[in-house]
């Protein structure tokens, strides 16, 4: 028998001590408290972790929203003005409703104080060519980028319209996470491009409070420097 065997034999011998029996009830009482405390802490930690993740996600979203220049808030539709006379091209959007076809044009008007200003007009064009203004919005032609972004609802099927100043070739738009098709037509007299969103079922919900992402691209497909969001 070698040293290790003798050591093992010595260790295997029952100790010359009489141990007190384990107080199982006490063990379970203390252990139960520890378990409950641990579960509470784990739950609290999970809540804190969830809050931290949710907070960071929300924070990032808010930060992105703040940084995202191609996000525009659709302005409220203006009241209809009377006696508006088209100036330059009357752009047919191709969108028809019961009252005719939706058209866009600029008008040069004077307000009550006699000041002249441009307005962008969304109107119905009847079969006989009669124009009935539906919505008007003041138009500032100075500065590149998006201008007068306005919702066509109510009063028209056009979900969104406006104009762009600059060498835009085509537009892209995203609403509620899905692409919203946008058409455009140049108005050479004013060197601007009208644009309007095409009616879609999921675009009917666009309101004054809606957020729509608009982008403008040149003929090479490159995003214009000022092609994100309203120009001013």
């Amino acid at each position, binding site marked *: 028998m070698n*040293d*290790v065997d003798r*050591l*093992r034999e*010595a*260790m*295997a*011998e*029952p*100790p*010359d*001590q009489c*141990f*007190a*029996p*384990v*107080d*199982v009830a*006490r*063990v*379970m009482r*203390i*252990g*139960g408290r*520890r*378990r409950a405390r*641990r579960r509470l802490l784990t739950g609290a930690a999970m809540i804190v972790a969830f809050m931290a993740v949710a907070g960071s996600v929300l924070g990032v979203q808010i930060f992105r929203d703040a940084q995202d220049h191609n996000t525009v808030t659709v302005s409220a539709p203006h009241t209809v003005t009377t006696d508006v006379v088209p100036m330059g091209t009357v752009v047919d959007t191709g969108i028809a409703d019961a009252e005719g076809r939706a058209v866009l044009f600029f008008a040069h008007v004077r307000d009550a104080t006699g000041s002249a200003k441009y307005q962008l007009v969304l109107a119905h064009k009847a079969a006989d060519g009669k124009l009935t203004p539906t919505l008007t919005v003041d138009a500032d032609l100075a500065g590149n980028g998006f201008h007068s972004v306005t919702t066509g609802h109510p009063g028209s099927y056009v979900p969104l319209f406006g104009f762009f100043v600059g060498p835009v070739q085509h537009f892209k738009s995203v609403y509620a996470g899905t692409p919203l098709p946008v058409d455009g037509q140049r108005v050479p007299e004013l060197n601007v491009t009208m644009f309007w969103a095409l009616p879609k079922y999921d675009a009917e919900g666009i309101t004054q409070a809606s957020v729509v992402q608009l982008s403008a691209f040149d003929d090479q497909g490159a995003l214009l420097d000022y092609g994100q969001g309203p120009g001013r």
Partner: protein
Amino acid sequence: MARGDVEFVEFVRASSARLQHAAYLLTGDRHQAEDDVQTVLVRVYTAWPRIRRQDPFAYARKVLANMVIDRWRRPIREDATEELPERPIPDLADGVATQEWLLRALALLSPRERTIVVLRHFWDLSEADVAVELKVSVGTVKSTASRALAKMRMSEALMERVS
């Protein structure tokens, strides 16, 4: 009583004697051994829903071993000494003498050495299993066990010389 609790009571009944024996070898003190086993069982019960379907005995053994080493790591501790404690020399012919010698020899070891000796030769774990249990390398287990056995042999030689 819940089914899990019934199982735990059964586990305590089956394992407490061996745990107390191991704790006694690790600490050399009956009261300390009783306290340690109580603490180990509290921790086992805390983790019982998680470990009951695994190997609760291995879990208890691991907790006990690490508890002894952790106690040694605390700032206030009892260090192992090369000096034999002042105790009466037992009669080697007596069966109790083996236990006396064992405890005196174990008292020469550091807590880590003592733990490795107990895991290897009382629990009969392999060197690899000891390494896993204590989260050290197999080489550390081998060298520590070798050093511990050398110390214990020295103790034995001294006892024989005294007797």
